[in-house]
């Protein structure tokens, strides 16, 4: 008797295999948890991989203090439900200098996220960190290995990646070096949504359309999530039915006008849409080849 596995079943089995290999072959793994839909799937896969044990590593949220309120709520709930330790890290220097997305542009991402991540990994001496990046997201991601090595100073060297054959992963490294591991490398955006749908995985409600206060800034439709949003003179937030295709810091994340309030509707809208996912993020528009450069510097 034989049974044909669907592409989602094959992807799930591959991701679980990767999660278990890392736990078996590294000393202090951690899962970077950004509360977005990709993180939601990655966490769900980890819970499946080690069931009935809880995943044998903590969750790490490198926080910028500028995430949507709804993200903080889901983050705390998921940590409770999974029985995993939640570590939240704030870059003390960014906090002291009051770095924010309104006044500091790309420095905001550099300090809170890129520097914050390096500091957190060093502080806890994690030697492996799971990330929810997918190869279909962006061109330089498409070339990254599933096990991606970082030097002692957290740099990525795209020209000296280890060959990665079959499903054998070489997790050996020198002291101080670390590995970023991407268990959902081979999933596409549609795979993620369909899996969330089939497995009934909790996600932040902002992915579904609802009336929310909005303003237009630099070509992005932004949501006024709290009173830190500096309104310009005469500017009044407009209530629109919006949702988010991707979630980050609320002042940097563009919404789309939508009425898709259920998962099938969201998937339907995504499939009929004509712009790619990351366009809603300000970070990629900074400069040509921006993601590759950020990654070499240590951005996840």
């Amino acid at each position, binding site marked *: 008797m034989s049974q044909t596995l669907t592409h989602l079943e094959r992807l799930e089995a591959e991701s679980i295999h990767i999660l278990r290999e890392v736990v*078996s072959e590294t000393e202090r793994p951690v899962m970077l948890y950004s509360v977005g839909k990709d993180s939601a799937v990655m966490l769900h896969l980890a819970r499946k991989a080690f069931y009935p044990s809880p995943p044998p590593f903590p969750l790490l949220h490198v926080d910028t203090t500028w995430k949507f309120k709804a993200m903080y709520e889901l983050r705390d709930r998921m940590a409770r439900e999974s029985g995993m330790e939640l570590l939240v890290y704030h870059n003390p220097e960014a906090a002291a200098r009051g770095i924010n997305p309104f006044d500091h542009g790309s420095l905001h991402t550099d300090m809170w996220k890129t520097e914050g991540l390096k500091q957190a990994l060093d502080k806890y001496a994690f030697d492996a960190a799971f990330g929810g990046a997918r190869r279909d997201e962006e*061109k330089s991601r498409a070339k990254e290995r599933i096990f991606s090595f970082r030097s002692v100073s957290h740099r990525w060297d795209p020209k000296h990646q280890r060959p990665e054959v079959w*499903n054998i992963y070489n997790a050996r490294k020198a002291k101080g070096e670390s590995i970023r591991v991407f268990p959902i490398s081979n999933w596409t955006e549609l795979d993620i949504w369909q899996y969330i749908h089939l497995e009934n995985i909790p996600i932040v409600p902002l992915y579904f359309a609802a009336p929310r206060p909005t303003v237009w800034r630099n070509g992005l439709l932004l949501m006024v999530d709290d009173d830190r949003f500096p309104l310009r003179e005469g500017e009044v937030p407009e209530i629109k039915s919006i949702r988010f295709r991707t979630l980050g810091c609320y002042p940097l994340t563009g919404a789309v006008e939508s009425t898709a309030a259920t998962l099938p509707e969201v998937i339907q809208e995504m*499939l009929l849409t004509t712009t790619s996912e990351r366009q809603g993020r300000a970070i990629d528009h900074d400069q040509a080849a921006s993601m590759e450069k950020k990654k070499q510097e240590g951005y996840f």
Partner: protein
Amino acid sequence: MSATASQNSYQAQELIAKDIDAYLIQHQHKSLLRFITCGSVDDGKSTLIGRLLYDSKMIFEDQLATLEADSKRLGTQGQEIDFALLVDGLAAEREQGITIDVAYRFFSTDKRKFIVADTPGHEQYTRNMVTGASTADLAVILIDARKGVLTQTRRHSYLVHLIGIRNIVLAVNKMDLIGYDEAKYDAIVADYRGFAASIGITDFVAMPISGFKGDNITTRSAHTPWYTGVPLMEHLETVVLDVTADQAKPFRMPVQWVNRPNLDFRGFSGLISSGTVRPGDAIRVLPSGKTSTVSRIVIAPGPSGRSDLDIAVAGQSVTICFADEIDCSRGDVIASAGDPPQVADQFETTLVWMSDEALLPGRAYWLKLATQTLTATVQHPKYQINVNTMEHLAAKTLELNAIGVATLSTDRPIVFEAYVANRQLGGFILIDKISNATVAVGMLHFSLRRSQNVHWQALDISRERHAKLKNQRPAVLWFTGLSGAGKSTIANLVEKKLSRMNRHTFLLDGDNVRHGLNRDLGFTDADRVENIRRVGEVAKLMTDAGLIVITAFISPFRAERQMVREMMDHGEFIEIHIDTPLADAEARDVKGLYKKARAGKLANFTGIDSPYEAPLEPEIRVNTREMTADQAAQHIVDVLLLNE
């Protein structure tokens, strides 16, 4: 954009718009095809993949706008869209205009989902190609129609075949640049067919295409009316994949992790590499060989709430519980009790060297195979393969991108299967212990020591007891010398003399053994080595039985005589060199073999066109110019009895 593709996409769009639930169900049940594209630099790989993405509507408007702007600024195609820019991701590549690493792309049609590995054409990046090929079900090998079959085409085809990909598409690209010339296309395909057959590729599908112009990509091109096959996309959508083949094989699951949340639960987690498993199945844990029964197959509860499976198949990640408390840990393999894999510690392997630092024979490397990690050493390569001519070349080492065959030994027995039978239990990597770099990718072919599945059985009647019953000391009288030297004659006399003295003997004669035990062996160096190895093993068994074994073989190589000497207990092996000058042996020529060899009718004849390595320190040397056969035999018997 072709009419058919538009129509297909239009139908999908319509279903998405009208009934998203129906579309999701359709999409959920699509199969997955993983393929690689490979070929030489500038054969148009990136352009072809860009075209497939574009034609399957995987390019969004914003990406298209960027592409159009980039094409004008950076493109090499004038004002037309340069599809290669869609996939040439890294900044360094954009500058150099080449692809330097494997890139994975994703697209889907109504019938299938695809993951394509774009693999580089440069020779120095062979390691990346092996990476891309290792997970692929199908390979598209691109040829530039203006250039034909190149060195890189051969290298990539050989690698694809070596990795075990059986679905191969030969895409003769840039047909637009040779005016869609049928004769030129036929010549390229014929050229490739000849090469492919020489390396064992018996089947491939050839098609004339232009990735740049879109010919024969999604629809049959009007420019190639003489082409009767299907377009590339249709082939990718419909090619038959033997996805269930692994399920038909015996059950194997390498253990990744032991799941022990509390004292009441102990499960073994892993990805099933072949076969199927059900609760109640008898299993065997290797290498220990301990057996038990599967009590549960555990997965996390899904939305339905159930967390146990009635059956699990190859390709699934599960956790298995046993009915008995038996030892099992990471690195072990759980297998069908009645049909377990082999366990051995020495193998013939093919290695693809992937490091700037060449292979150092004898150096200890980490070997990782499935979930087993241990120390391994590689002997001097038997040969390196010239991927252009498929010649076997002598090699002292393997350098970056070299492919060779070598013997590999592990510091303890590992559970394995031949690569052709099971990729997960036959494919391995070697890791440098200092730099931690992955230095080689390898494939196990077979074990060299017969330790597989065989465990020493303790016997009550010992070899000492056997010998004592016969009232003698076992020994091996190993005759070596040229053909016609007189080995068989003297050996026969020795046996007669010993027999008269009530000694229990057995004579193994070269010619006689080749009629039976070694009937399958010829006279190449490799076969001569195996011939002697087998005779050595038989002689060993006979000494265990207490016999005095007399062997008469040319046994021309020192290394093999040494090998047999090491099999025996100290002092049991008596090497006897029947030292007859070549001229004397050739003058006698009792079997007429020298005459045939001199006439070129008999190849690999020792002393003529195959070397004889005389013993340096034999226990007994018989100079046949100085003594008769009978004198020699008596001398040998005297030495033997002195030894007793």
